[in-house]
């Protein structure tokens, strides 16, 4: 029985398959087919059968990470959407938070909403802050709205009323009536998509969901059809922005949940690798062609954020807390108007790509610098499938060297130092913001370019340990297999915490737990596989933003205990806590998770500490004093307990790891490379 993870990226579709009984694993990449992403998946599954020994009938689960929703938003190719909203508030979706994205830029605006003003229909209805009906939604009003919808040419519809998280009645009634009358139009309802406080974020999230629904429906429908036709009725799960999986059916109802899922599975995979190597606190660095994503993992747990956005639109759904930096292999070196050398955020992307790709690119990129310094081999990437032209790289960097009055190699080193400084700055600000010192973490690089730069970045941050996972280039596909089926449930009901309100707090919590049980039942989950987590979003009365507080045990839980837990979290987040302050709960959150039992991939038998044989050597520049003769190793042949002293380069199919002079690398029992960085 095989579990297959498929991660579809812009350039490659990655596959990682594990046999659930034997632990045998297979991984490979195929070029993506952006016009019809399902084609690459279906072809890859066929390749698994014909060339990789994974017969299609032996596949029982497919875990899929998709960027279809993300790309639809970026390219603004979603549906024609209508928004039905409370009378007086049709402009709210366009006003947003009434701010500009860049204060000094008079030309920069947040994007136009995806729902045109003419398609925003105001509905006579009103619910008060306490959930009471102030203006009733009449059947005449529903008829009027239906008539307006009838004459519009929309293909999806969002419903978002004020205080619908308090009282869902109006939204539900309107949705039920309209769903019956317009069976071909998908309806996204704010109390279903995101039943939380703060109307702009809730309605914006709902509108984006509606915008994505027709596109995702047809994509996932087509994928499901083809998978069924070729493999049969296997379980297909889709990756969510929060790092968990969801069923295909939920993905079709809530496509917005996949919008930030691109980097999420990689963090799940990285966390898994950290656990296998027994290192609980890591900073993950996923560096690809155009950008690097940074996330903090503490005690094998990544944080979730509820305030992320995409293309200027807020999405207040749980997503892994990731910060992106415009630094990747394709980042371009340039001189600013003050003569300072900068690298990125502009990237040469995949086309034309770095100059050394020979696809017509002439700008000097980070990849060109790595090639000139011998850190990348001119035999190229992907086992020689893609050769790199060092003459092109040298030509691209030459003007920079001339302007800096430096040798070509010194200029290339300078470029790498600058791109490293950019990442250091990003990592530092993420850690300081979360109240941590980066020196207390190990660095876990992945993505094609991560392991090339990790040691430099670790040094500059004062980090002593780097973990290069076994397959850095396909960690996302692997992470999909390690992800669990999850669902986030929430009820918003601001309630002050005191002995007298405690019974209400318990009741509200139980009502969300009942929703959780309904979900487990709907997904057919056995009781022993259910893992439920309760989190309250809490704040001091008068504050505008909440702090999540984990509720460990509902049985022993008291108002005093809750107050103490909140104060501890407040202290951690803000550096102080005023014990006298009145506090309140805003959101009751329950996360459900289905424990997945899977078998670890097989690892070759360890043979005790040994120095592996290099496959080659070449000259590599680590400082501008001159190149060092550097041994090259093949990652695929390295076994546990292999020890390699720097300088060395460890090369593999989709990534290159640099071990600097003075640093030492060893391969652990999980086949991860641990680099001890010299100070």
């Amino acid at each position, binding site marked *: 029985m095989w579990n297959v993870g498929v991660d579809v990226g812009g350039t490659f579709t990655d596959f990682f398959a594990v046999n659930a009984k034997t632990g045998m694993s297979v991984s490979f990449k195929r070029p993506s087919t952006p016009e019809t992403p399902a084609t690459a998946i279906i072809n890859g599954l066929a390749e698994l059968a014909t060339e990789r020994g994974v017969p299609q009938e032996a596949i029982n689960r497919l875990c899929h990470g998709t960027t279809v929703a993300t790309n639809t938003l970026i390219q603004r190719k979603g549906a024609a959407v209508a928004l039905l909203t409370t009378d*007086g508030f049709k402009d709210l979706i366009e*006003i947003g938070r009434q701010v500009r994205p860049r204060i*000094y830029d008079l030309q920069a605006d947040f994007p136009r909403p995806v729902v045109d003003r003419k398609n925003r229909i105001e509905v006579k209805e009103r619910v*008060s802050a306490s959930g009471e009906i102030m203006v009733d939604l009449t059947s005449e009003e529903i008829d009027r709205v239906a008539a307006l919808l009838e004459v519009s040419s929309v293909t999806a519809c969002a419903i978002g009323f004020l205080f619908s998280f308090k009282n869902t009645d109006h939204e539900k009634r309107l949705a039920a009536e309209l769903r019956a009358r317009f069976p071909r139009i998908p309806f996204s309802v704010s109390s279903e998509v995101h039943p939380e*406080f703060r109307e702009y974020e809730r309605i914006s999230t709902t509108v984006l969901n509606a915008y994505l629904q027709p596109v995702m429906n047809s994509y996932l429908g087509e994928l499901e059809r083809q998978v069924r036709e070729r493999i049969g009725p296997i379980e297909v799960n889709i990756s969510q922005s929060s790092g968990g999986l969801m069923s295909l059916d939920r993905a079709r109802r809530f496509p917005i949940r996949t919008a930030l899922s691109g980097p999420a599975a990689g963090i799940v995979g990285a966390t898994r690798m950290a656990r296998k190597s027994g290192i609980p606190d890591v900073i993950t660095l996923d560096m690809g062609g155009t950008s690097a994503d940074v996330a903090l993992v503490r005690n094998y747990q990544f944080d979730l954020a509820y305030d992320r956005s995409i293309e200027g639109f807020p999405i207040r759904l749980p997503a892994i807390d990731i910060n992106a930096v415009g630094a990747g292999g394709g980042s371009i070196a340039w001189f600013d108007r*003050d003569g300072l050398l*900068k690298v990125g955020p502009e990237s040469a992307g995949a086309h034309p790509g770095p100059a050394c790709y020979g696809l017509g690119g002439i700008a000097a990129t980070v990849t060109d610098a790595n090639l000139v310094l011998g850190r990348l081999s001119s035999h190229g990437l992907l086992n020689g499938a893609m050769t790199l032209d060092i003459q092109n790289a040298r030509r691209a960097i030459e003007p920079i060297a001339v302007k800096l009055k430096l040798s070509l190699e010194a200029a290339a080193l300078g470029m790498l130092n600058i791109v490293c400084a950019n990442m250091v*700055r990003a990592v530092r*600000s993420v850690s300081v913001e979360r109240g941590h010192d980066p020196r207390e973490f190990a660095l876990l690089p992945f993505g094609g370019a991560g392991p090339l730069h990790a040691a430099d970045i670790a040094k500059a941050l004062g980090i002593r340990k780097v973990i290069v996972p076994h397959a850095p280039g396909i960690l996302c596909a692997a992470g999909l297999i390690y992800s669990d089926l999850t669902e986030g449930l929430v009820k918003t009901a601001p309630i002050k915490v005191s002995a007298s309100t405690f019974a209400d707090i318990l009741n509200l919590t139980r009502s969300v737990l009942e929703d959780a049980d309904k979900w487990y039942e709907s997904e057919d989950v056995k009781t022993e596989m259910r893992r439920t987590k309760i989190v309250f979003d809490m704040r001091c009365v008068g504050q505008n933003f909440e702090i999540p507080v984990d509720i460990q045990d509902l049985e022993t839980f008291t108002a005093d205990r809750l107050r103490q837990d909140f104060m501890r979290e407040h202290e951690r987040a803000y550096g102080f806590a005023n014990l006298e302050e009145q506090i309140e709960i805003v959101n009751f959150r329950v996360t459900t998770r289905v424990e997945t039992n899977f078998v670890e991939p097989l690892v070759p038998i360890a043979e005790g500490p040994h120095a592996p044989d290099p496959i080659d050597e070449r000259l590599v520049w680590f400082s501008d004093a001159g190149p060092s003769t550097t041994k090259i190793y093949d990652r695929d042949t390295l076994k546990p307990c292999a020890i390699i002293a720097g300088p060395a380069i460890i090369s593999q199919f989709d990534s290159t790891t640099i071990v600097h002079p003075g640093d030492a690398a060893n391969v652990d029992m999980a086949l991860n490379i641990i680099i001890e960085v010299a100070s």
Partner: protein
Amino acid sequence: MKIGKVDLISLEIINNALRSVADEMFISLMKSAYSTNIKERHDHSSAVIDVRGRLVVQAEKSLAIHLGSMTGLIDSILDQYAIDEIKPGDMFVANDPYCAGGSHLPDVNLALPVFVAGELICFVCNIAHHADIGGMVPGSMAGGMSEIYQEGLRIPVVRLFSKGELVGDILKLLLLNARVPEERRGDYYAQISSCRLGARRVEEIVERFGRNQVVVSFDEIMKRTRSRVDNAIASLPAGTHVFEDVMDDDGLGTENIVIKLTLTIDPAAPRLMFDFTGTHSQVLGNINTTMNATRASVLYAVKALLDPDAPNNQGLIDAVEIFVPSGTLLNAEFPAAVAARANTCQRIVDVVIGGFVDVLPECVVGGANGANTTTVIAGVDPDTKRQYVYFETLGGGFGGRATKDGKDGVQVHITNTSNLPIEAIETEYPLIVERYEFAEDSGGQGRHRGGLGLRRVIKPVAHSAIFSGFGERFFNAPWGIFGGDEGRPGRFTLVSATGTSKRLISKPSGIVIAAGEAIVIETAGGGGYGPASERSPESIADDLESGKYTRG
């Protein structure tokens, strides 16, 4: 002391590290402050300033209006103390606009001199808007005040720490003179720990790169920004341009307050001179600005027009000359009231942009809602019997632009604070927001029209409440450029239960909104760009189809 050279790569890396210092100070202050104002509205800034009082780097998210206030403090310190009187472990505090380089009293500045091996290397400083600094009214910001003493506690440059020891007497004095002293204490400690973090980070950088490299980098960074801005000035056409605009009133009887600018561009020098001679004399109401606030506003506009990516440092500040006769609205003399300076700062930006209309036709924008329209509703919650004060500023229309319309309903120019969610307002206050929408037809028409103003309709629930407002651009409309139409001014209107409307003045105070009545706040639409006759048929169709315009 030998001054070395720094290579371009090290310079960029040191530059990056210094930006990181300012940014981390900013984050640390935001995280540990007590005031909502700082923690959530981010009304604070941080910077590194050299031993001559020159701004080296400012945190990326710093407020535009704070540019210059921190250097103002260091200048005052250097004026009052010889270098050898500044000792390791000293920390200075100040806020006064007249004797300590501040811009209004709620903005409290802290500065920590950083010593390495006994030598003063630089200052790290931050500025935070405290929710209250004493004075006549809670919040220390309301209208009706006519001299600085009414606006709160004036803090000259004094040591909050001396040789590493807290000067407890000073802290006691500061806390006694502000409302909610425990909160203020939290904010002061947040500022202190942010400075300490900054100092530690500068020490690390000096340790890594060496004292000389770092100090030379300070100079290089400023020099390079200066030449970057100079180059931009050198590319402008020579000429003199006069522009003036009129503020509605100061709330204490002075109306039609003129701001006049004579802009002289000499690309050969290169020189950019802003002469505000002809501007109205200072007024009794609290809309006056001191030079620091005026300079910050001019620099905001210059940077936005010439080079939005230019770093905020002394190189930018020094590239621009500003002359304002003292005793005028924009260079007020003691003891003029300044708390509501933000309205005037907004208008300075409009005026500077107006001065550049013929110089940079591609970059300039029509007159915007050059205001900081403020609504305050106070009363007693009929259910809880507790007093409440609801306070918010509303955005308006942005000016039409060379390639596109002005943005509808947005905070403009130097202000960029969020609105409050309707669901937050109605949960926290006994108020109902009936409408929050664009004021249709309010943007000035043009080839590219001005953005629409906003309209918000608020009703107290089952009680009567008191409304006070601070409106600007209620009588003097945002102007169009190159033949664009002017935007429609804003207004406050009281609507009775039976639907009759009564227009209020621009700075009303103590207006009773009875149960059943509603207050309507409307802000100005922006001015258009280019003649309306040149508007494309598609844009006209879109205006009508979207319903943003009811006429053609």
